[in-house]
């Protein structure tokens, strides 16, 4: 016996452990939201290209677009144009779209739109970059200025990363004569970045400028310059003004290099404006609707993979164990009398279709009438089966009458009587009448009331939207329930009602 108990306990703990582990994995690793109401911002970045076509020559518009990134999930990407063909290609670490048209006239506008989410980012293979760079040819005064700047930088740094940070800081010290010479009067951020990059290349450190867009709702954003270097494993980003390391979460790398974002052949006045907007989308909806997430096996093997109609069925079905667990508790811990274990759960399911108050009224009325009809039939001395059949037929007639009355009176609730509640009611009446005969009226009434109360609790619990979402999204919770049920199977303590029942025995002791 002790061995069996230990076995059951171990099994229960394994079940609970597995359930908790799978849930934690889903939450922590797969990043699946714990609540249905959890929302995520979805960013929509529009790049609007406008230019004036010269009119009599073919047009080619080249626009840099963001390369794939492991930091974001691309939900959608579209190229919007009229009478243009387009082609997307890779150039080094960059990605660009080429719109082309044989003939275009006047003011032209092209759109590129990208929709991003920061949740469910894909684990893409990072691009590699160069680790060595030849020294560029420099004029004599510049070379000397660069060398004299580099000497203290080299002294104050330990490795490539600190070297870059130090270089950025030095260059941003505008009072330095050498810096002023290199900047040649232009103190803009882009020029300072160019100087930093040049310094680094003199020291054979490969670094490149990247243009980024900030995920901040804005109308006319200009790309921000960052520096980055490849350390053999990954790219390291530096702020070209402060020298701080690391790219903030909300920056999207648009393209790298110093080339302008747009290049138009056969047109003039090319301009690009970036606008960023955000919308809140429920995280789980995001996960469900976005094709890439589904493909990326995050949610495959989950119930969300099923067709929607089947999902709805399982949303209900997966709550049944919760109802059963509740009934188990009510019976074994509280000591409540119900008609069997599963009848209350089924009645609770029937309440889904009728709603609680109406369900209780209907349950009571129909069961009462069914039972009184049954006791009347007793006088006719019918055999068991034919008597039960008559009762069941009358239950159907009764429900039809209620539906008809409800409809005539304009109470549409009366129509909620579906096949499912009818089958359950029929079953309840049958069981109740058997109990009535076997154990008497008071026991049958006790069980009927207990069933109603348990079913009401069960219904309230099973229709909890948050709970339903949790169970459906994290089916591992069901294993936890199995564990609890296993442990309940070895519960040997008193039921609450027994404390009342045996009060005489306890009192004697106290005397």
């Amino acid at each position, binding site marked *: 016996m002790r061995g069996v108990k230990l076995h059951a306990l171990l099994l229960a703990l394994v079940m609970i452990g597995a359930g908790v582990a799978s849930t934690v994995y889903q939450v922590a690793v797969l990043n699946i939201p714990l609540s249905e109401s959890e929302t995520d911002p979805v960013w929509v970045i529009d790049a609007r290209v406008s230019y004036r076509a010269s009119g009599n020559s073919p047009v080619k518009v080249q626009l840099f677009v963001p390369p794939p990134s492991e930091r974001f999930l691309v939900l959608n990407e579209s190229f919007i144009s009229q009478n243009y063909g387009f082609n997307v290609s890779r150039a080094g670490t960059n990605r660009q779209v080429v719109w082309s048209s044989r003939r275009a006239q006047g003011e032209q506008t092209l759109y590129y739109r990208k929709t991003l989410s920061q949740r469910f980012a894909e684990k893409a293979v990072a691009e590699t970059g160069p680790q060595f760079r030849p020294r560029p040819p420099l004029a004599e005064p510049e070379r000397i200025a660069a060398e004299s700047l580099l000497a203290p930088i080299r002294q104050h740094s330990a490795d490539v990363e600190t070297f870059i940070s130090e270089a950025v800081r030095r260059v941003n010290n505008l009072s330095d004569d050498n810096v002023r010479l290199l900047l040649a009067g232009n103190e803009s951020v882009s020029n300072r970045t160019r100087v930093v990059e040049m310094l680094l290349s003199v020291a054979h450190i490969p670094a490149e400028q990247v243009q980024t867009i900030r995920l901040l709702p804005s109308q006319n954003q200009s790309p921000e310059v960052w520096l980055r270097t490849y350390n053999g494993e990954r790219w390291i980003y530096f702020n070209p003004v402060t020298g701080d390391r690391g790219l903030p979460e909300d920056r999207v790398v648009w393209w790298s290099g110093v080339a302008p974002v747009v290049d138009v052949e056969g047109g003039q006045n090319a301009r690009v404006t970036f606008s960023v907007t955000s919308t809140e989308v429920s995280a789980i909806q995001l996960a469900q609707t976005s094709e890439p997430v589904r493909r990326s096996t995050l949610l495959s093997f989950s119930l969300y993979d099923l067709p929607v109609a089947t999902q709805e069925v399982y949303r209900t079905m997966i709550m049944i164990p919760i109802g059963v667990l509740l009934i188990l508790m009510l019976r074994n811990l509280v000591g409540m009398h119900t008609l069997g274990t599963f009848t209350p759960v089924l009645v609770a399911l029937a309440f889904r279709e009728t709603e609680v108050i109406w369900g209780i009224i209907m349950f009571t009325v129909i069961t009462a009438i069914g039972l009184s009809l049954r006791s009347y039939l007793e006088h006719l001395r019918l*055999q068991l089966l034919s008597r039960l059949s008559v009762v069941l037929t009358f239950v159907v007639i009764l429900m039809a009458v209620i539906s008809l009355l409800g409809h005539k009176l304009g109470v549409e609730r009366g129509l909620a009587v579906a096949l499912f509640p009818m089958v359950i009611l029929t079953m309840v009446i049958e069981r109740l009448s058997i109990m009535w005969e076997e154990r008497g009226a008071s026991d049958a009434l006790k069980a009927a009331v207990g069933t109603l109360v348990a079913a009401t609790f069960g219904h309230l619990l099973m229709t909890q939207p948050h709970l339903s979402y949790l169970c459906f999204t994290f089916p591992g919770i069901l294993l936890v329930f199995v564990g609890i049920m296993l442990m309940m199977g070895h*519960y040997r303590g008193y039921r609450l009602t027994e404390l009342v029942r045996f009060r*005489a*025995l306890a009192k*004697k002791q106290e005397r």
Partner: protein
Amino acid sequence: MLGRWLALRRRGVMGINERNGDYVLRYNRRHLYPLVDDKLLTKERAIRAGIQVPDLYASVESEHGINAFLRSLDQYHDFVIKPSQGAGGDGILVITDRFDHFYRTAGGRLLTEDDIKHHLSNTLSGMYSLGGHRDRAMVEYRVTPDSVFGAISYEGVPDIRIIVLCGYPVMAMLRLPTRQSQGKANLHQGAIGVGVDLATGITLEGTWHNQVIQRHPDTANRVAGVQLPDWNGFMEIAAGCYELTGLGYLGVDLVLDKDKGPLMLELNARPGLNIQIANDAGLGSRCAVVERHMEALAAAGETETPSKRISYCQQHFASDILPVSA
């Protein structure tokens, strides 16, 4: 509430969860249940084992056998008709007398032969059986209760319930019908339970609806202090029922007939727990004592005869305070 919990634990009071998990599930194999659920099977076994039971007059299992069945009863003037798998005493018809074509029931009602036939057909269709299965009907000797119960009983036949753990009788109770229980000896139908001292067969205090009582609610006589005659006869039958069925945790229901002495009426595989209130003692602690004793015996490789088991229980579970004889 917690204090009461602890008090009950200290007294070794057995709860339903404990009974179901530690005793019924552990000692009673499911496939043996039909032996106790079907009274005809129980009776056949008992007769073969030489255990005293009320005589079986006849049994019937199909509608067309009813007429022949009734004819075979012509020689008897009083008898009891029972469903073989009935529960809670339902469907039991006690015939005390008959004249012309009428049967008189214990309650004084007159029934015609058609009434009896209808009752039999209801019984066969499963109206009184657990779960409404088809059933058999049986007719047996009508027990006349011993006069010792005259003062503390109201109608019906009092019976004695003894809880037996693996052949060790651990607790006993006398069940007395009341007006409310309509002559039935089931506690939850309103009968009263009176504890019985295992060693002497003298009755203790009573329980009625989970309360402790001293007097029978209908006759107002004290229930305690009545000496049951032939007490060891009861104990021997009870102890022998373990070998009879193989069920380790058993409630044995016995009656005391004024002519035939103790008779075994039926067996119950999940006996109720109110016997503890009647005896003012915990079943759990008594069962634990027996289990320890059995373990010790098993370790020593010994087994005990029923009479040894009885004397072990009488030695250990004797009541400390015996009431003064009424």
